Every structure is written in structure tokens, then in C-alpha cells.
């Protein structure tokens, strides 16, 4: 979340889309209810089904699963056409005024109506990719800063291109695509657009209903654009609020569990990035304003060589965050840079990065002095992490981290797709022979789960750490399978439950809350940290005893979490995540203290500060429980600790008017620039430098979106995502209708097609003539994920004892199905049986002259536990989001029949 849970009490307009918080995040409704009661907030719900959240809503809009982009683009179009956007915010804080390069504009003009593909598409590989240089900004050749038109009227500027792009999403077209009546779309838009006023705040609450599509990331992009147009980012009661689907999935992603990240969202290296890339580190770069030449005395360079196309990045002085490509080097160590350096400067620390290295690919650069470009600090985070993990390899010599390349080489390099579906394909292919499943139940949670179950059958061994004997733990004796045919050695390790172990949990609002152990785990059950500690120690001793392929990373790893009696302590891990000075092993205050020299070690830069109350003063900040709030906006800044830097609302610099530095809405002040004090005042921690001015005309002014190299909120996505700078409506891979915007390109062009056999329908999608009904899956309040934790508890089994399929009265009548009948739901991948729950809360969609039926079902059920049922994921397809590969669980084609 950009904001946090308690902030929901500050909201005036809730847009709930792609989620069902009353059922699946019920505690959120503690705060939503406060906003409804105390502020007269309005609740707007967009959902294929009239859910328990919709039951509390002021406005409800139905839409066919998979058409969120059409809906939100329709909202965006109406807002642009009727000037309902916040003009100041758009002009000052977004890239709407930036000009796009001529080739992009030419392409868009030549391809009208938009064909569903952006310029630069290369279809020769799988997946197809875009050459994103085609999407770049126009840049001033002298300064390197993007060209803008502050009037937003120039035909090259993003704002005009946006208007044109979204103009296709008229209410009529949106109705044809989504099945939502035009009047309803307009009503929802007009109501939500009221949050664009300076004294109003609107929030978007979303969850897996938005992300679990092949264009799920673009769904979120659409929300982002909407929120930026309405000045809702960075303010109290606003934001893009992802409601995470697991209690500590935020913590998991923070710690780098996603395959393409190292901890703290530092990208993991690919096999084309064979070096870390620190060429030279120096100080006192001297430059002359307007010239393209810089000089530095030889003694200021490290003795690593510098080459053309290397990148120079500034780390201190008045160009901090700026980075420039080197175009020539001479023996006197004069470097010629691609653009003129903006100002003469002294005390400028710099790093020179090798072209083609990891850092070259992952240090974004900018030339705008107003852009902080925070990710330029990535070098510090990565080196500090390498120092934490392999301390003896990374050492400081003359200000340079020697051995960092060695440590970098210990990191595994990605050479393909390691996302969830691919892992199972690797098992099918025999590449992966063993599985460690920690609190995970793939037999129920995987898409196309029959295929996953068949993969489990192929494993040589499986270690499963669980509280119960789940479906996965007993896959080898599941219904329909003869255990004698399965050769997997299964080790079921009993695990401790949440109150039986200590550690932190990060909630959706980035709050890291410490949990203490309340009771001992039963019997032989152990907590995860104990088990992982044992894994490491035993693996290490195997390597020590018998060598092996490349033992160095294991043998040299720093692993020092045991306390007394050899029991590992979560607090020791936290301390390492916080980071410390290597000279004296005292904690760093936060990530602003981290260096790229090797003088600091830090396991996770966003967590830096979680274990320090001041520089060199240790305190578990996550364990704080002061529930007084003095902010007036529910920040509770002394309750636990949140990242980054205990900043509760991120991008909060955008909460002020840049003409004055004062809050857009004084009644919900987040931060405020004080000219008198020449610094920012709270109540929250300001994002982007406490002494950088909030007034746009002042020289120390800095842009609020510090994690983007252009400093702006991106209504135009530029190079961020794989599938385009604007969200475009694509149909799900299984769709009941053609894509009326571009029938020749119905689905996203960048979808990855998994190689593998077609026996279990891996890359085959159901035909709409045979499977005409839209199917979706969702959760209910009473059950949790793949069901082990709830279907094994009698009080929860009691409230939802059986799997069911919800369908409309109309569809039920057509099929001769009465409420409570037993039905079969089939897709091309498989079929399930369940009870029919016939309800008026689902209605057929009238779309473009056609009636399209939709059904939905919870996916919690499986063949184990007190409350059993068929697993809905037997039906869902093995295909994933273009950017994240999260499976498209939410929209597929099926058929229903009475049994």
C-alpha cells in the first residue's frame, strides 16, 4: 500500500474494485466503517458479483470478470473529457506534461484505431517483447532533461496523447465490453471524481481480483493513472492500496521471496549481467557549467579502468542522483560525458559503472536536478547486502569495496523464467526433482491443479512443513490415485503456528509488527527459523565434508543467528536486516547511512531502521506498542515500525501545493514545508529530503515521486512494464467474446506460453462454443487460502462446510438447476462437482447484443480436512500475468450442468 490500514478512516470516497474487503480483509472494515459514519464517506463497489462488500455500498457496478481496464479506462476518459481531473496535481506531479518522442506519436497517429500493440513489438521470441526505446521521452540534447509543455496542449505531450488513447473508452463501448450499464459507469465516475477536489480524498482498495489476470499489472496501472488524475497519491485518505492476500506476504516480498528480486526489491541478477560493475569510485569531480568535460585528478580515481559507455553516477554534491554516460576518456583522466553537467560542483562523490554490468542495468539515471532518483542508491544497498552475507569477501580498501565482484559472483543468475507455473513444468521435465513446501499447498492453490498434482507424483522427494496433513502432504494417497504407483519420499515436518514463534509480520500497510511467542509448539513441531537454521548447518557441513559444485557461497556465508543453547533468534536476523557499521558492529540508524564501500552491512535496506532508535543505538522498533496518535490522521507513528523510515504515507511530498508548500487539505495534513524553518514539518516523515524545499520555484525543490528517475508520477508508463505505457483492454486468454476494440489482437501480445506437453492442457484454451460461461474464483470470509488452516477447524467448517458454485437465477433456469442441486463445472482442463448456490447476486451480462453468463466459486476446498470439496483450481488456466506471471485465476471459460 502507498497508505495504510488506519488511514482508511480518512477516506471520503472508497473505490473497491478487484477486491472484496468486507469478506477477505474484514478488519479493514473497522476503519472503513469509521469513515462512513464519521466522515459521511461513500463506498463504491465494482464487482461481477454482489458481494458482502457490495451489500454495504452506496453504489454498486457489475462488470464481467477480466474487464477492469475497460471500466477504469472508461472512468479515466470521462474524467479527461469533462475536466474532472485536478489540473495542478497533474501538471506539477505527473509526467503528463512531458513530450513523447516523435516516433511514438507518429505510430499512434498512423495506427488509428489503436490495434492493441504499441510500437516496437518483437514477436520472434516467447514471450514477445517490446523495444521500449520507442516509448521514450523527448529529451533536451544539452541538459538531458525531458522536454515538457506546461500548458499540456502540445500534441506531443503525454496529456494529449492520453486523451486520444482513452477516448475510445466511451460509456457505450465500456458497456459493450464489461456489461456494466452506461448510466452506472457514469454515476460511479462522477461520484468518485469528486475525490479530485483539493479537500477530498479517494482511495482504491484492490486485491487479487485485480492482479490475477494476464494484464493484472496493467489493471493496477489504470488505478494509478486514475488516482494521479484525481490528486489522490501521497495524501491522507488516498493512495493505491493493495490488500495483500496473506498475513505476511508483504514481509515475504520485502525479503525477496519473489524469484526476480533480491531482498528489498533490488532486482536479482540475470545471466547477462556477469559483473557487479563498480569501475571507479572517487570524489571531487570538477565540472564547468555548460561544458561537456569533467576532470578529476588521477589520485581521485580508484585504480580500476574506465571505458567509453560506462556510466558516471553522482552520490554527493549538487547533482546527487544524476547519472551520465561517458563518451570519451583520455589519459589525463578527462572524461567527456553525453550531456553537459548542470552545475559546477565540489565535494561531488561519484561512481563509475561498467557498461553491461548489473549496476549499469539497475542504476537508473536522470539529469534533472529536481529529481532525487532514489534508486541510484541501489549500489549502496547491494554492496551492503553482499557485505552482510559474505563479510570476508567484501572489504574496504581506499574507499573501494574490494571483493564485491567476488561476492556478487556468489549470487545465482537468472537465465529463464522461474515463476510458479514454470517451476511445475520443470518438475514435469525432470529438471527439478525435489520440493520443499513451507506452509504451501500447491495441490489446491495451483492453477490447473491436476497438472500440479501430476507433477507432485514425479518428485523424487518432498519436504513439507505444515500444521496439518494438507492435500499436498497426502498427495500420494489422494482420491483416484494408487499410492503404490508413487515413488516420492515425503517428509512431513510439523511446524509451529503463528502464536508459537517469534518474529515480525509486515502488513499490507508496510507496518512491521513484532510478535512474541505465546505458547510452546506442540509435540515435535518447530518454528521455521529453527528448521532453516538446521538446513543451513547440515548443508554446510556436507559441503565441508565432501566439497561439491561451487561450495564457496555456502561455506563463506555469514550465518550467525543462534543465541543461547544453539537456538536461532529472530531478533538477530532483524538486527542484520537493519544493518550495522562493520568497523564496530553498531547498528546504523537507517538506510541513509548505508554505503557502497563495504563500511556498512545490511540484509534489507527497506528494513534499515527497524532495529535502531538512533544511530548506533539498538532498539527493536517493531516491538513498540504506543497506541496514542497525535497526528490527527491516524498515523500511530509510535506503534511498531513501518518501512521506509517509519514513513506511513509514501509520496507524501505530493500532499502539498507546490506553489506554496502547504497541504492541499489542511484538515488532513500529512507534511508541510516551513519556509521559516527551512525544513519539512510532520506529522509524517517527509518523502525525499527534509531540507529540500516544497516550493517549486526554489532551487532546492525536489519532485515527490522519488522512486521514479524522472521524479514524476507516471500517467504514461514509459519503460516500466513489459506490455505497454498505457493500460489497454485485452480479453482474458479464455474469453466468451471477441475484443471489440481490436479483434485481431484480442489478448495481450506479451503473454508467455509455457512449453510443455499438451496432455494436461497447458497451452490449450477452451473454445467459447463449448465453454460459453465466464468462470471466476474468489475467497470467502470464513476460509483461508488453500483451506488447511480453516477447513481443519470445526467452528469454521461449521460456517462454510461445503464447496459451492454461485450462479444467477437466469442461468440456473436455463440449465434446470435449483438452489442446492449437485452440479458439474467443466473447463478444457478438468471438471469439478459441487453444490449450486443459485442467487440474485449474480446476473447475466448484456453485452453488445449478447447475453453472457458468469459463475463464481471459492477456491479454498480440497480432499482433506473436516470440510472437504473439489478444488476450483482444477479449472483455472496455466497462464500468467505478462509482468509478474501470477496466474490468471480470475477469468476463464467453463460450462455447467446438473449432475
Amino acid at each position, binding site marked *: 500500500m502507498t497508505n495504510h490500514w488506519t488511514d482508511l478512516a480518512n477516506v471520503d470516497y472508497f473505490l473497491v474494485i478487484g477486491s472484496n474487503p468486507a469478506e477477505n480483509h*474484514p478488519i479493514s472494515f473497522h476503519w472503513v466503517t469509521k469513515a462512513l459514519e464519521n466522515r459521511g464517506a461513500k463506498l463504491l463497489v465494482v464487482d461481477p458479483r454482489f458481494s458482502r462488500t457490495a451489500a454495504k455500498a452506496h453504489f454498486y457496478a457489475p462488470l464481467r470478470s477480466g474487464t477492469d481496464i475497460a471500466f477504469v479506462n472508461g472512468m479515466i476518459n470521462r474524467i479527461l473529457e469533462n475536466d474532472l481531473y485536478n489540473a495542478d496535481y497533474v501538471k506539477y506531479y505527473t509526467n503528463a506534461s512531458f513530450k513523447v518522442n516523435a516516433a511514438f506519436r507518429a505510430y499512434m497517429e498512423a495506427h488509428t484505431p489503436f490495434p492493441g500493440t504499441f510500437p516496437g513489438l518483437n514477436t520472434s521470441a516467447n514471450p514477445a517483447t517490446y523495444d521500449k526505446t520507442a516509448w521514450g521521452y523527448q529529451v533536451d540534447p544539452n541538459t538531458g532533461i525531458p522536454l515538457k509543455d506546461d500548458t499540456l496542449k502540445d500534441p506531443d505531450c503525454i496529456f494529449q496523447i492520453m486523451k486520444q488513447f482513452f477516448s475510445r473508452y466511451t460509456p457505450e463501448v465500456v458497456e459493450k465490453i464489461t456489461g456494466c450499464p452506461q448510466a452506472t459507469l457514469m454515476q460511479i465516475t462522477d461520484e468518485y471524481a469528486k475525490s479530485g477536489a483539493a479537500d477530498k480524498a479517494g482511495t482504491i482498495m484492490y486485491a487479487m481480483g485485480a492482479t490475477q489476470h494476464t494484464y493484472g499489472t496493467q489493471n493496477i496501472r489504470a488505478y494509478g493513472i486514475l488516482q494521479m488524475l484525481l490528486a489522490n497519491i501521497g495524501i491522507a485518505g488516498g493512495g493505491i492500496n493493495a490488500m495483500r492476500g496473506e498475513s505476511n506476504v508483504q514481509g515475504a516480498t520485502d525479503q525477496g521471496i519473489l524469484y526476480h528480486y533480491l531482498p528489498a526489491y533490488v532486482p536479482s541478477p540475470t545471466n547477462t549481467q556477469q559483473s557487479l560493475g563498480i569501475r571507479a569510485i572517487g570524489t571531487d569531480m570538477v565540472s564547468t557549467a555548460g561544458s561537456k568535460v569533467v576532470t578529476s585528478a588521477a589520485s581521485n580515481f580508484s585504480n580500476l579502468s574506465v571505458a567509453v559507455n560506462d556510466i558516471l553516477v553522482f552520490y554527493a554534491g549538487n547533482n546527487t542522483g544524476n547519472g551520465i554516460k561517458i563518451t570519451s576518456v583520455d589519459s589525463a583522466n578527462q572524461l567527456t560525458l553525453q550531456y553537459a553537467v548542470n552545475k559546477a560542483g565540489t565535494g561531488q562523490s561519484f561512481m563509475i559503472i561498467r557498461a553491461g554490468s548489473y549496476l549499469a542495468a539497475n542504476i537508473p539515471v536522470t539529469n534533472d536536478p529536481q529529481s532525487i532518483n532514489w534508486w541510484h542508491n541501489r549500489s549502496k544497498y547491494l554492496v551492503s547486502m553482499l557485505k552482510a552475507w559474505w563479510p570476508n569477501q567484501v572489504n574496504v580498501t581506499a574507499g573501494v569495496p574490494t571483493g564485491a565482484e567476488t561476492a556478487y559472483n556468489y549470487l545465482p543468475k537468472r537465465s529463464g523464467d522461474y515463476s510458479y507455473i514454470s517451476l511445475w513444468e520443470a518438475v514435469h521435465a525432470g529438471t527439478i526433482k525435489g520440493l520443499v513446501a513451507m506452509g504451501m499447498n500447491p495441490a489446491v492453490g495451483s492453477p490447473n491443479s491436476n497438472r500440479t498434482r501430476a507433477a507432485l507424483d514425479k518428485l523424487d522427494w518432498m519436504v513439507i512443513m505444515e500444521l496439518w496433513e494438507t492435500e499436498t502432504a497426502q498427495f500420494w494417497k489422494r482420491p483416484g490415485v494408487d499410492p503404490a504407483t508413487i515413488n516420492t519420499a515425503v517428509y512431513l515436518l510439523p511446524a509451529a503456528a503463528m502464536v508459537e514463534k517469534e518474529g515480525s509480520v509486515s502488513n499490507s500497510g508496510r507496518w512491521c509488527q513484532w510478535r512474541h511467542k505465546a505458547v510452546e509448539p506442540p509435540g515435535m513441531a518447530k518454528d521455521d527459523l529453527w528448521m532453516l537454521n538446521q538446513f543451513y548447518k547440515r548443508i554446510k557441513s556436507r559441503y565441508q565434508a565432501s566439497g561439491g559444485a561451487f561450495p564457496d557461497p555456502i561455506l563463506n556465508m555469514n550465518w550467525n543467528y543462534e543465541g543461547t543453547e544453539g537456538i536461532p533468534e529472530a531478533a538477530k536476523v532483524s538486527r542484520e536486516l537493519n544493518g550495522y557499521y562493520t568497523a564496530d558492529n553498531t547498528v546504523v540508524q537507517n538506510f541513509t547511512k548505508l554505503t557502497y564501500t563495504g563500511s556498512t552491512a545490511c540484509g534489507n535496506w527497506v528494513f534499515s531502521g527497524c532495529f535502531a532508535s538512533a544511530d548506533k543505538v539498538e532498539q527493536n522498533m517493531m516491538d513498540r506498542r504506543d497506541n496514542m496518535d497525535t497526528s490527527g490522521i491516524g498515523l500511530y507513528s509510535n506503534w511498531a515500525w513501518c518501512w521506509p523510515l517509519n514513513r506511513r504515507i509514501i509520496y507524501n511530498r505530493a500532499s502539498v501545493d507546490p506553489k506554496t508548500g502547504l497541504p492541499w487539505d489542511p484538515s488532513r495534513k500529512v507534511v508541510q514545508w516551513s519556509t521559516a524553518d527551512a525544513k519539512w514539518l510532520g506529522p509524517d516523515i517527509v518523502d525525499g529530503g527534509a531540507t529540500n524545499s516544497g516550493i517549486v520555484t526554489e532551487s532546492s525543490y525536489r519532485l515527490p515521486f522519488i522512486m521514479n528517475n524522472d521524479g514524476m508520477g507516471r500517467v504514461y508508463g514509459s519503460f516500466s512494464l513489459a506490455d505497454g505505457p498505457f493500460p489497454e483492454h485485452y480479453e482474458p486468454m479464455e474469453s466468451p467474446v471477441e475484443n471489440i476494440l481490436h479483434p485481431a489482437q484480442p489478448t495481450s501480445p506479451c503473454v508467455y506460453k509455457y512449453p510443455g506437453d499438451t496432455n494436461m492442457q497447458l497451452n490449450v484454451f477452451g473454445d467459447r462454443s463449448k465453454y460459453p460461461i465466464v468462470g471466476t474464483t474468489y475467497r470467502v470470509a470464513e476460509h483461508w487460502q488453500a483451506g488447511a488452516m480453516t477447513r481443519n477447524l470445526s467452528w469454521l467448517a461449521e*460456517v462454510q*462446510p461445503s464447496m459451492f458454485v454461485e450462479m444467477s437465477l437466469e442461468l440456473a433456469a436455463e440449465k434446470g438447476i435449483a438452489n442446492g442441486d449437485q452440479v458439474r463445472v467443466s473447463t478444457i482442463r478438468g471438471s469439478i462437482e459441487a453444490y449450486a448456490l443459485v442467487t*440474485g447476486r449474480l446476473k447475466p451480462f448484456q453485452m453488445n447484443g449478447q447475453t453472457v453468463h458468469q459463475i463464481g466459486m471459492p477456491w479454498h476446498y480440497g480432499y482433506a480436512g*473436516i470440510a472437504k*470439496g473439489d478444488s476450483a483450481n482444477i479449472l483455472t488456466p496455466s497462464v500468467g500475468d505478462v509482468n509478474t506471471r501470477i496466474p490468471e485465476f480470475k477469468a476463464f471459460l467453463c460450462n455447467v450442468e446438473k449432475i
Partner: protein
Amino acid sequence: MTEKAIFIDTSKCIGCRACQVACKQWWGLPAELPAENVAGSVQFQYKFSGSYQNPGDLSHQTWNLVRFKEEAGSDGKMKWFFTPDRCRHCKNPPCQEGCPVPGVIVKDESGGVYYNVEKCGDCAKQCAEYCPFGIPKFDGDIRRAFKCRFCIDRVHEGKTPACVKTCPPGAIQFGDKTEMMDKAQARLAVIQTDNPEANIYPGFDYNNFWLLLYAPEKYSLAQADFTRKEKARLAAARTSRKPFTVAGFFKPLTYLGMLGGLGLAFFRRVDAGKNPEGKIDRHGK
């Protein structure tokens, strides 16, 4: 202890069942899974209730039940009603009135009505017969009735009932009765602007009352049948022996007899009631 009340604001209830489970957990009540449907089946092991509501009704083991009811509104707007159903904790509990064993049914100073079931004795289940809402439930033939206990042990310790404590949106509230009444009235006034049928159910002569947006039957809440006490009285007066006849007064119990039992009495009375001289005609003539 000042008198307390539970106030349930259904405009806030999200039907999550936290209260239902909290009650089970606090009182250690066993779960009631549905009856078996297909033995050994993964898909159809249990009978299906047809809605999210489970179990189907209050029982000796389910003292707080969230009821679900859908309605397609006449204005085209879908509605889905949820509310936790439980004892209303009447001011003058008819169950207590009917119970023949002293000390079983207590109307506590907190306002809660609770049963000391260990003291239950031989009875005709009058508590259940008399309750206008059909709340007390028996455990088969065992003569002990069970229902919401107002979490009387928690309340006496200065705590809130379990359902109140757990409710995420704060729909179920607890406090001094006067304060709860004020809250309910204030909330009613606000809600009524957009929901003219909103009402307090069953009223303030109870220590557990609801704010409803519509009539109680829409929430599947029992309409108050205050004749239950009387029907119980009639039931107590009946026999399983053959019907009697009273010559000249009742005919053999044919249909006319059923109706005639009173009608003829009417004629009898009216005939006899001709006005004596000197008295004002009671009908003013």
C-alpha cells in the same frame, strides 16, 4: 452495576461470522456440522443449506447465529441482509415467568438474562413455550434450555461480551443501557434520512436490541409473537383424551362447535344484557 445493553447496528454488519465463532469459542460450544448427505464423498459429504447461513437455526449449541437473506429490491437494487440473531434479553422475560423452577432463570442487574441450567428440573419446557421469539433451545429430550448468556462472566468482570469484542466493523456495541439507547436513537435519525423504514427492533424494553433498515422479517429475525405465552397456557389446558361434549352448549366437536364455542356465548351474553331500567345504555342510546 449499572444496567447494560447490547446494541447491534445492522447497517454496519458485514456478515463475517466473527461474532458467531467468538461465542462458540468463549463458551466452548461444539460445532454443528450439517447432516451427512453422501457418506465418504469429497464433494457432497454434508447437506447443503442453500445459503451462507450455517447452521440453519439457533440451537442448544449455537447461541448466536448470523442470518442471511437476499432480496431483489423493487427499485432494482439488490439487497443482502445480515444480522446476528440471539436472545433479546427481555426486560420482563416471559421465559422466567414460565419457568417452574426457582433460580434457574436469572434477570441480572446488568440486564442480561441467563440460565443456571444445572438447576433445571422437571418442566414442560415453558421457557421455550413462552418466549415470543422462540429463543431457548433444548438438547433433545434433556430438560435444559440454552441460549445467549450475555457473556455474564465477562460482563461481571467489567469486560464486553465476546461478540462485541471481536466485531470488526463495530456493529455490535455494548455499554450502559442509557448510552446504548442514545446511540441507537442518534444512529436511527441519521439512517432514516436515506432509509425511511429503519427501526429499532424489538424496542428498548430489551437489553439486546438492533437497528434495522427494514422490517425484521427481511432479516429473518423472528417477529415477536407475544401470544406464545397464551398458546402455552392453552396447550397446558388441553388433553390427549377424546374430545368432550357439553350438551346444549357445545355440539360434538364439529366445525360449528369450534366456532360456536364463542359465538353462542355472544348471543347468550347479549340476550341477557338488556339494559336494566335507569342505567344509561352503554352504547349511548
